[in-house]
């Protein structure tokens, strides 16, 4: 071991300096790497980052690579501002995009059970689609903003449903409910300053409660029956009335035919009579005789039993009997 100070210094030079030299490289390198690691950060494309210095908000930066003060002086929180998030009420689809997308299995039936404005019950399932558009508000104004959104959404949906009849809720009022709930929800979200933008509220299945379901179906069935009965009788109407109209026209045409025939016949008869009359007037006596005899000549041969009586001989009876006897014998 060296005794003089010079020896001591030499010793130091020989043994420690090389190590120090090595350390002079390693320590700054470690320091630089650590600084870089805590000063550089990247923000994903769909997000924005909020930077806090000693807990105080400094600025907001967009996607890409950024610098901040190292060693935890600046801290950043990334918020997916462009991502569409959704919350489901009364049901759940698999694959949650965020922790508040749906509630627990026990909560769901209670979530969807509602009372309508005519004090009936209805089961309403819906979806809220939203984005985080103001990250500072989202982070600093309200604690648990997404849980708050769930509460407010349920309340707002019941307001809309509570002002409607069960028929409106189930059938015709769906769109109105969606738009009313949407504007009301956005209004309250803005009031609180939750930093969210509500894009859409969609009603999913809206049903009467299970025990009542069949009676609702019965109404639909009765509606169909009504239509069926009406259609059947309309069919009967259409079967009968046009046919009757056609038949009536047929009878009318036939009557017109009759009229034409009647008049033509009359005119024919009259013309013939006039012709006859003209000739008759020229020789009345002869014509009368001729007509008379012609007629008898035509008629008499047809008659099988002819009796000619002599008014002077009063023996009509025996002759008659004889004649009838010959007829019977035939």
């Amino acid at each position, binding site marked *: 071991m060296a005794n003089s100070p010079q020896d001591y210094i030499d010793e130091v030079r020989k043994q420690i300096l090389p190590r120090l030299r090595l350390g002079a490289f390693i320590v700054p390198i470690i320091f630089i790497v650590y600084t870089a690691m805590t000063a550089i950060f990247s923000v994903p494309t769909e997000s924005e980052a909020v930077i806090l210095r000693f807990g105080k908000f400094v600025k907001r930066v967009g996607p890409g690579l950024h610098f901040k003060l190292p060693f935890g002086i600046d801290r950043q929180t990334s918020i997916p501002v462009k991502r569409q998030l959704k919350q489901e009420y009364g049901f759940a689809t698999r694959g949650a995009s965020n922790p508040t997308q749906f509630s627990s299995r026990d909560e769901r039936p209670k979530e969807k059970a509602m009372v309508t*404005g005519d004090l009936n019950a209805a089961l309403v399932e819906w979806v809220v689609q939203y984005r985080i558009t103001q990250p500072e508000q989202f982070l600093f104004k309200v604690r648990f903003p997404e849980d708050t959104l769930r509460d407010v959404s349920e309340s707002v949906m019941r307001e809309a449903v509570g002002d409607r009849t069960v028929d409106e809720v189930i059938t015709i009022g769906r769109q109105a409910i969606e738009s009313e709930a949407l504007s009301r929800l956005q209004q309250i979200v803005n009031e609180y300053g939750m930093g969210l933008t509500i894009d859409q509220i969609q009603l999913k299945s809206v049903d009467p409660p299970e025990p009542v379901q069949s009676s609702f179906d019965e109404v639909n069935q009765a509606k169909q029956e009504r239509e069926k009965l009406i259609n059947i009788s309309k069919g009967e109407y259409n079967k009968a009335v046009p046919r009757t109209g056609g038949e009536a026209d047929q009878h009318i045409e036939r*009557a017109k035919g009759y009229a034409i025939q009647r008049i033509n016949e009359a005119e024919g008869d009259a*013309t013939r009579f006039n012709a006859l009359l003209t000739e008759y007037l020229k020789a009345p006596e002869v014509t009368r005789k001729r007509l008379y005899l012609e*007629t008898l000549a035509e008629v008499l041969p047809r008659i099988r039993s002819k009796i000619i*009586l002599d008014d002077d001989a009063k023996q009509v009876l025996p002759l008659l009997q004889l004649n009838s006897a010959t007829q019977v014998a035939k």
Partner: protein
Amino acid sequence: MKATGSVIAIVAFVGLIALLNALYTVQETEQVIVTQFGRPIGDPITKAGLNIRIPFIQKVNRIEKRILEWDGRSNNMPTRDKLYIAVDTFGRWRITSPLTYFRRLRDERSAQSRLEDILGSETRNAVARHDLIEMIRTDKGREPLRDETLGEESILVGELLPIVKGRIAVENEIVEAAAKKLIDFGIELLDVRFKRINYNESVRKKIYDRMISERQQIASRFRSEGEGEAARILGDKERDVQEIESRAYRIIEEIKGEADAKATEIYAAAYNQSSESIALYGFVKTLETYRKILDEDTTLMMSTKSDLFRLLKDIDGQ
């Protein structure tokens, strides 16, 4: 030399520890009350950033600055119209006077239990003062939409029950009553809302029965409407058929009558033109009639005095 170096090192080390302990950050979401042996010192710090305190002696108490939630338990309670309902409410509040809050409640757990006590009982009071419908409906003047295709049926059911105040007014009553009490704790109550209101298990059965009977009434209404409409159409059918047939009958008789009249006129004009024509018509028509009525079954007795046979007795026919 060595000793002084060590002392300096130790003092520097302790000084560094003390400095690190003296520095503290305040987050954007919180406000801080500095206490010394449990006693608050100075005003609460509400601005975020780096702050300094006396190390080891002063303590930092962090209190929320954000809007906080109160999620009430679901409770069964009766309404003024004696319906048992399950009511689930929630509210928003924030700590506006941190010192008062800190002195009276110290932490959030006790704040939440106060809120539950006060809001729970105010909710119960408000519900007991109102009929159920007041907590269901909101807009007094709203008229329900009617399904045009249902016709008269929609008048039968689906009336919105009338309200005096409505849901939001009832909620505001709860807030008003509770806010006064909470201000003493340094708490500002922002709002209270009904999250869920539902029929109690025991009432539900009766509600369902009512709904079922209502639906059945609508269904039978539909059926009878169908039958009625069908009967009406069949009536229309019969009326139209009879109308068509009778009109046709009338037209037919008119046509025939006119034709008969015309024919009669023509005949009369021909036969009635002079005494000769009348005589001739009588003569000709009689002969024509003979032709028609005398057939082979006729027994004809004719006298020898008749025009035809008188020649049988006398050539001169005298």
